């Protein structure tokens, strides 16, 4: 069966819905049909929500017909990563330990999306518990990159990235703990936003590393990501780390003007021995494009960058080992049968339920928090985290945004890195620092290398999600890389 044609952007769908040229039911039908047709090739989804999505769409159609759409997202089909809770739907984190688990509640971000009328069509594949950079560590098998199915879409939110890149949905959500939105966005040629830490409530996002995790959107354009952030952001009393601020109004800040903005080029991220030459060339061309648009470029230094990946893997695994202690076979998820003691129940349920990468990280985190190693590893990493934050504070004294590659390379081949965890971790070298420092960062397509998309990363000051989005939007108004679509899926 040929896949139906890709869906357009949120803005295009909005116009078509409001003019009566189409209905939400039709868009949802098309999204579901395209998802099903592409599933054998891509495996972007772990589950689809057919009848319930069509029922939601019918309600959206009634609102739109009455001339009272709830929001710019009303009636628009979206995808959700499998770690975002939605009442009555599975929330499995692509893990065996949560097989069959159905969430009794909505994540705050999901509740806001539903209140805005967005129609969830399916749950997207991911690395188990968001631990990975390739979507290969999924209990349900790897997602493939729409630009080349022999390659990874990146990870851990690879399913959401692939679904948007393949035109199944115009908008999908993921989570980013060390690059899990931005790196897959780069690998699949779409836009991915990790908001400022605390901008989006983490309530209902299954916790991986709580001081780093943020929910964020994928779309083809920065404009749609800004719109999505405006919908899901804002203080939530159920997440005491959420910023005590109203929802953002980023979209109205996108007027294409960047004159007066100063963009820092961190020399450690642009060194010739870091990223692939083709990636660097595309990223520096993008910097010059923004300069032509009126922004000022300035070289800056973030001297502790080389320690970021090590710092990240100590902090993130320590937090993960603690967060994942909740999976014990008692209250939800997989339970080993026939255990004769509580300890045996815990050990067997967890050993049977967790995959290899999750075990590796729980063990590393437990090790670095254990007596005798805490100071040498965990406390040391927290101190270096302070130095990384100081680097950014100094750089942002003279800049409004920083410009870097999102990843040092284009999408790598499936299977190429799974045997070498350290090499896999190093694909996050340019993304982890934004999480450690709590900064907003967006990845957007800025060219191709060997036929594969190259990602440009723009970082902002903590709290200033608008600046990187504004630059990204201005860039997309002047270029057409985001309009390219992978051939495989038409």
């Amino acid at each position: 069966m040929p896949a139906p044609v890709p869906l357009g952007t949120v803005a295009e769908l909005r116009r078509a819905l409001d003019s009566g040229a189409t209905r939400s039911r039709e868009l949802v039908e098309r999204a579901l049909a395209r998802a099903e047709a592409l599933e054998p090739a891509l495996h972007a989804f772990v589950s689809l929500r057919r009848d319930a999505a069509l029922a939601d769409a019918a309600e959206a159609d009634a609102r739109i017909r009455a001339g009272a759409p709830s929001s710019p997202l009303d009636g628009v089909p979206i995808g959700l990563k499998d770690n975002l809770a939605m009442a009555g739907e599975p929330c499995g984190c692509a893990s065996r330990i949560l097989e069959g688990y159905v969430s009794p509640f909505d994540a705050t971000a999901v509740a806001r999306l539903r209140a805005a009328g967005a129609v969830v069509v399916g749950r997207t594949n991911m690395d188990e518990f968001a631990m990975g950079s390739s979507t290969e560590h999924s209990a349900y098998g790897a997602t493939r990159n729409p630009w080349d199915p022999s390659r990874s879409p990146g990870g851990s939110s690879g399913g959401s990235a692939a679904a948007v890149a393949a035109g199944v949905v115009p908008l999908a959500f993921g989570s980013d703990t060390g690059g899990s939105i931005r790196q897959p966005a780069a690998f699949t040629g779409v836009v991915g936003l990790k908001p400022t830490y605390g901008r989006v409530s983490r309530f209902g996002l299954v916790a991986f590393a709580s001081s780093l995790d943020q929910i964020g959107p994928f779309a083809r354009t920065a404009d749609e990501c800004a719109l999505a952030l405006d919908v899901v952001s804002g203080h939530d009393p159920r997440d005491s780390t959420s910023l005590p601020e109203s929802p953002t109004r980023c979209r109205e800040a996108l007027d294409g003007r960047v004159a007066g903005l100063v963009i820092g080029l961190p020399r450690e991220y642009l060194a010739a021995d870091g990223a692939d030459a083709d990636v660097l060339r595309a990223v520096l061309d993008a910097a010059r494009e923004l300069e032509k648009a009126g922004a000022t470029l300035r070289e800056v230094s973030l001297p502790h960058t080389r320690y970021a990946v090590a710092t990240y893997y100590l902090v993130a695994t320590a937090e993960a080992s603690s967060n994942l202690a909740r999976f014990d076979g008692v209250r939800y998820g997989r339970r080993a049968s026939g255990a004769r003691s509580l300890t045996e129940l815990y050990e067997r349920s967890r050993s049977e339920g967790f995959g290899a990468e999750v075990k590796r990280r729980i063990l590393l985190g437990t090790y670095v928090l254990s007596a005798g190693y805490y100071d040498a590893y965990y406390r040391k990493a927290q101190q270096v985290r302070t130095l990384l934050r100081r680097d950014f504070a100094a750089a942002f004294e003279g800049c409004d945004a920083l410009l870097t590659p999102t990843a040092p390379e284009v999408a790598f081949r499936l299977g190429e890195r799974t045997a070498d965890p350290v090499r896999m971790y190093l694909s996050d070298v340019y993304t982890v620092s934004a999480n450690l420092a709590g900064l907003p960062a967006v990845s957007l397509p800025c060219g191709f290398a060997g036929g594969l998309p190259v990602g440009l990363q723009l970082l902002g000051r903590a709290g200033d999600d608008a600046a990187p989005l504004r630059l990204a939007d201005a860039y997309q108004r002047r270029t057409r890389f985001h309009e390219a679509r992978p051939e495989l899926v038409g």
Partner: protein
Amino acid sequence: MSRIGRAEVERIGHLARLRLEPAEAEALARDLDAILRHVAELATVDTDGVAPTAHVRALATPLRNDVAVRSDVSQLVLAAAPEREGDAFLVPPVLEGEDEG
């Protein structure tokens, strides 16, 4: 020199409530050793007098008003339990045969 061996991985596994097969523990010891070698470079960073960052936001524990609110999810929460008895989660004996190494 290896930083971590199979016996250490098994000890940590018990702390993390993970039961590891011998071959699995062997492989994990190799992986963790490689990771620890990579992160060892942090030891070269001068962090004298640098305060650790546990969190990027200055966290205080907020108090909410002491007001009762209705929550109707208890049955849904219990329904997700693999084994329950009435309104309780069912577990094997907690004390009998316990081994808290």
